[in-house]
């Protein structure tokens, strides 16, 4: 740890593992009483060397490797990789395949946002909201399973297209599922906008101004909640978003409440888009032919994952393997911004601020270390205890 971040009063390390992400984090917060005075992040606890591994595998083998970068937004990674390779090979997937890719991407966004509502509700101590939102998430998981055969790692993509088609029964079940989820989303929006105990944990907390979000390079809903117009589906439409445009959900407030509202509001756009695609699914083949050896060159692909922009750089050297593959996921951008936001906040707000960027923080129980530098005494807390501290803090404040 650098000297300028050395503990002054208490240092509270949070982390390291949350294996659902490419970027699990270890956070260390120095606190003065209840107020966070400095924050520090250490990543890499689940670094698997995928970028290196990709150089050793063929273009086709990599598709299966890439899909396993993230367990939640697996499809968007595979899609970004496919688009990069197709761009190098100068091949375009047929319109029907592009529409199906976007359809799965939007279902994935719904699944990811519902997961996040539950996680955030849990961090705030709203167990009922957590249970309900995860129950509803099962609906979209079932739809994805019905469509692709898999609840996670859908494996929908092929280089040059997609693996499966949709039949009438699947379309009907998607329409039905989406109707149900839309109704539930209205309910959740009502809860997060009007429940006073929930607002106590979100309103005015973790405020990031537009200028801050821009300078810190925040992406996705985290940026849009601070009125940064950054949504690649709108800014730089790719694949079927060119024919099926979407509206950007924005908010000017920049606090946690805004991040909740932006995520829920963009769900309505996803529901609308899914219906539109089902009604206007282009006819035609599912796959375009792609050579085994991909021509030399460089390709940059940027897609809007549920958490924000995912960036792929692929360099080919004319062989059957990539020369270099670079992945930049949205969480790394949002982590660096959130880590600065935490300074000046109550320790009790830390769980919600971290959950606010959707880093999928609650996959594991985490150890939290509280250290008194003056006496060098150590106190071990778990993530669960820190979370409870946040809940108790606001409960006693409400009395």
């Amino acid at each position, binding site marked *: 740890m650098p000297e300028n971040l050395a503990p002054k009063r208490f240092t509270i390390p949070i982390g390291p593992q949350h294996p659902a992400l490419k970027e699990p984090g270890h956070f260390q917060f120095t606190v003065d009483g209840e107020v966070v005075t400095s924050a520090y992040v250490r*990543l890499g606890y689940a670094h698997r060397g995928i970028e290196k591994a990709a150089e050793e595998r063929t273009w086709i083998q990599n598709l299966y490797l890439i899909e396993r970068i993230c367990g939640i937004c697996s499809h968007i990674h595979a899609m970004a990789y496919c688009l990069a390779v197709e761009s190098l090979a100068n091949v375009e997937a047929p319109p029907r395949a592009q529409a199906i890719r976007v359809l799965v991407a939007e279902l994935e966004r719904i699944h990811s946002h519902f997961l996040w509502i539950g996680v955030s509700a849990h961090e705030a101590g709203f167990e009922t909201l957590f249970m309900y939102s995860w129950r509803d998430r099962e609906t979209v998981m079932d739809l994805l399973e019905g469509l692709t055969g898999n609840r996670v790692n859908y494996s929908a993509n092929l280089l040059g297209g997609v693996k499966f088609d949709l039949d009438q029964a699947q379309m009907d079940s998607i329409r039905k599922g989406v109707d149900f989820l839309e109704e539930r989303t209205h309910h959740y929006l009502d809860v997060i906008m009007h429940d006073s105990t929930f607002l106590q944990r979100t309103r005015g907390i973790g405020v990031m101004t537009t200028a801050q979000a821009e300078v810190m390079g925040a992406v996705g809903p985290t940026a849009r909640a601070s009125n940064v117009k950054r949504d690649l589906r709108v800014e730089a439409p790719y694949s079927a978003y060119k024919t099926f445009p979407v509206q950007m959900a924005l908010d000017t407030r920049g606090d946690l409440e805004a991040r909740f509202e932006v995520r829920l509001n963009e769900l309505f756009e996803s529901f609308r888009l899914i219906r539109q695609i089902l009604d206007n699914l282009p006819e035609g083949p599912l796959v375009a032919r792609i050579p085994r050896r991909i021509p030399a060159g460089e390709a*940059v692909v940027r897609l809007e994952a549920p958490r924000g922009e995912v960036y792929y*750089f692929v360099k080919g050297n004319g062989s059957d393997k990539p020369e*270099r593959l670079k992945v930049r996921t949205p969480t790394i951008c949002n982590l660096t911004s959130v880590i600065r936001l935490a300074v000046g906040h109550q320790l009790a707000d830390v769980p919600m601020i971290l959950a606010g960027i959707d880093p999928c923080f609650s996959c594991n129980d985490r150890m939290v270390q509280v250290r008194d530098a003056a006496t060098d005494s150590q106190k071990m807390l778990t993530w669960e205890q820190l979370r409870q501290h946040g809940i108790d803090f606001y409960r006693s404040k409400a009395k």
Partner: protein
Amino acid sequence: MNSQEILTLAEAIVGAWDWATEVSHPRPNQIDVKVTHLNELVPIVVGLRVKRLGYLCAIVGLDLGPEVNEMEVLYHFCPGDVVIGLRVRIPRQGGAVPSLSEVIPSAEVFERELHEMFGIEITGLRNTERLYLPERWPEGVYPLRKDFDPASLAAHEGGV
């Protein structure tokens, strides 16, 4: 600003350093700028940042291999749907690039990754701690270099 305006503006900014840059257009919405004078990298980035083109999307290291004995560092700035790539070349041994973190705070994590994965020195980077590699990873071993041999780690005491 639309894409064309962004591209025109970016070229005008980079054009002020015409003696230190070579501009090419690999794709319609992309410009690739070879920065031949490393000292001019930060001023060019300041120029982009001042004109609000400074959203740094990623920093990519490229090892061109022991034969070429050089490495490339790519800085991708992505305002809107435009990709502005700044490309510098440095020697494979003892190569260094200036840190952008004073101009663009989010560059810090990308630079820490570049340093530990490729062994490229980042001049002026305040926090040079490891970001992704384990604490026990051997010094001087850079996994994204082309001549890195994973088997060499087996000999490392206690594993990594």
